[in-house]
């Protein structure tokens, strides 16, 4: 569904991605894990068209996205849930959601948008309760739900999630990832980047490990969870063993 080949991108003169290739098949949840600064967000931003790649190709459903502007990429079926959520805090929950359907409302799909609102409220009942409240008054977890719900309003085939677990308590992280699995069951394909490798790989089908702008590992998510390198670098396994050993 999504194919990325030899992607090079960066900011200013600094190259953050040194020729990255990856693919996401329809119906998959694919996780990209890596440390802070590995280039994960740059990768998502390049796919979403927010930055222009220096080199390489991005294909979505066999069509090149080269030169495609972000609104057209959204219209093609790719939704981005950015890190930090990028909500409009003074606006109400409902208005934030309507903004997610901006392209469709402009086309006059009012009835369909109303149905989708009902759908996301059914998915996130808490947002229905708070539909009139300003987005800025929601808790971190609720804001993340709102950000996902807003992306769903564009009826994406694929969602790009940038660090969905950032700043959330473990219980909420679990809730967010449960939602991802549920939406995946409803047919949405996911590409998510995460520092929280454990949570991401627990729900993903496959994973890639990005290290300083280069892919260094790939495989089934359950194999990566067992991988010594991944454990050491991203799961804090050695430290936990040490700590547990001390507690005994």
């Amino acid at each position: 569904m999504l194919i990325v080949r030899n992607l090079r991108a960066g900011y200013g003169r600094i190259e953050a991605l040194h020729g990255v290739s990856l693919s996401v098949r329809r119906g998959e949840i694919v996780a990209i894990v890596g440390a802070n600064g590995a280039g994960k967000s740059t990768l998502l931003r390049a796919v979403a068209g927010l930055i222009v790649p220096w080199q390489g190709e991005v294909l979505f459903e066999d069509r090149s996205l080269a030169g495609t502007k972000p609104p057209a990429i959204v219209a093609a079926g790719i939704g981005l849930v950015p890190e930090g959520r990028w909500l409009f805090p003074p606006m109400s929950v409902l208005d934030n959601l309507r903004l997610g359907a901006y392209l469709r409302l402009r086309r006059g799909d009012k009835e369909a948008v109303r149905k989708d609102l009902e759908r996301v409220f059914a998915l996130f009942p808490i947002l229905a309760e708070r539909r009139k409240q300003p987005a800025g008054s929601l808790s971190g977890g609720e804001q993340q739900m709102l950000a996902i719900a807003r992306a769903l309003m564009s009826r994406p085939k694929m969602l790009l999630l940038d660090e969905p677990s950032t700043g959330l308590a473990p219980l909420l992280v679990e809730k967010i990832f449960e939602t991802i699995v549920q939406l995946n069951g409803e047919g949405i394909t996911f590409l998510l980047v995460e520092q929280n490798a454990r949570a991401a790989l627990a729900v993903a089908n496959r994973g890639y490990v990005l290290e300083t702008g280069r892919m260094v590992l790939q495989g089934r998510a359950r194999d990566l969870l067992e991988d010594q390198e991944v454990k050491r670098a991203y799961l804090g396994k050695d430290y936990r063993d040490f700590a547990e050993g001390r507690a005994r």
Partner: protein
Amino acid sequence: MNDAGNGNGEWLTPAERRQQQLERLQISCNRAYKNVPFYRNRFQAADLSPQDIGSLEDVRRLPFTERRHFGEHYPYGLFAVPLRDIVRIHTAPGIGGSLTVSGYTARDLKMWKEMVARALKAAGVSADDILQIVLHPGLANWGRDYKDGAEALQASVIPLNALHLSKQILVLRDYKTSVLITTPSSAVQIQELLFAADINPNELSLKTLILVGEPASRELRRGIEEHLHVTTWQHYGLSEVPGPAVAYECEGHEGLHVSEDHFLVEVLDPKTHEPVPEGESGELVLTSLTIQAFPLIRFRTGDRVRVLAEGCPCGRTLRRMEWLPDRVDELLVIQGVKIQKDQVAVRVAQTLGFSPKKLSVHLVRQGGYSALEVQLGMEEDLFSDEIKELERLVRKTAFELRQEFGVPVEVRLLEGPSVEGHP
């Protein structure tokens, strides 16, 4: 869930295959460059960085890895992970008198297990089978990988053991073995031993014979199949490094499907090192795509193969190759063990205490199985009045060579002029 996305790459479309191979090739290059000085230096000598590998064809810009490099970087010089991540260290008899050491991470072993299981499954092996492994000790790592793979299919495994072939045939009969994994040479020996021991193949439960280690001709296979009432399947593997079942036959028995989800295949003209035209034979060069501990970049196997262009009726999209009997290098392959002629000469010289002027090393076929034959020309240093002394030397040389290589050896003394010079 998408099966293709989940590990078994036997059925990918050509476009999916290329993308998967590219992703994995880039990761292999990144890892080799990052972790193995040998590979990093070779990238740099070629003025390349891993990001220059932007297509599968770009692999041709990289230098070859050859068998001698294993000896030169003995023991751990080519490992790409810290030793703490290695869970198995395997030794194989190397060439040039050195040992070849390879290592596996836990994930590597899992990968081999799945790859071998898949190859066995293609030969119809299942939980209902009793599977016996009879291999030369030099192929002990294959023995372990076959055991793991067969166990993954829940077959009952009789692992590699030290029993002599004459005892193996009793196990074969009494334990009701249904699948036997062995080399073509051993298969012929087993067949002869069975007949010599007056055991009628009808007393056996054997139905599947998996031939490994050396290519087997159609005639040889037909002979074995008729005598033992079995179906034969051929597997291709790498003996010194990684493991078995890199390529395997499906029910069509027309060529071996190469595990292209784990290896990138090149078939090159041994002289020009350029890809051979479609349908022609050349040297098989493999690049590992998923191996963590011991990555191989453009490893020259020395094996001659021919890629079959047509798709396979079985539906697997892994390309098929025909494994041809002659090699592109000078190695002799006897029961799956690779022997360099120079190595034999060195051992003979050590045994005799001098370097014979007239020495030639051959592979001979006796009945169906192969042996190492050393011909020594008569010369003064060797000459003795006593026939007994000469016989002693011949026996000693043969004994030492058997010790060294673990294969059948014949040493023959010839009149000087009739022997050609050393290879």
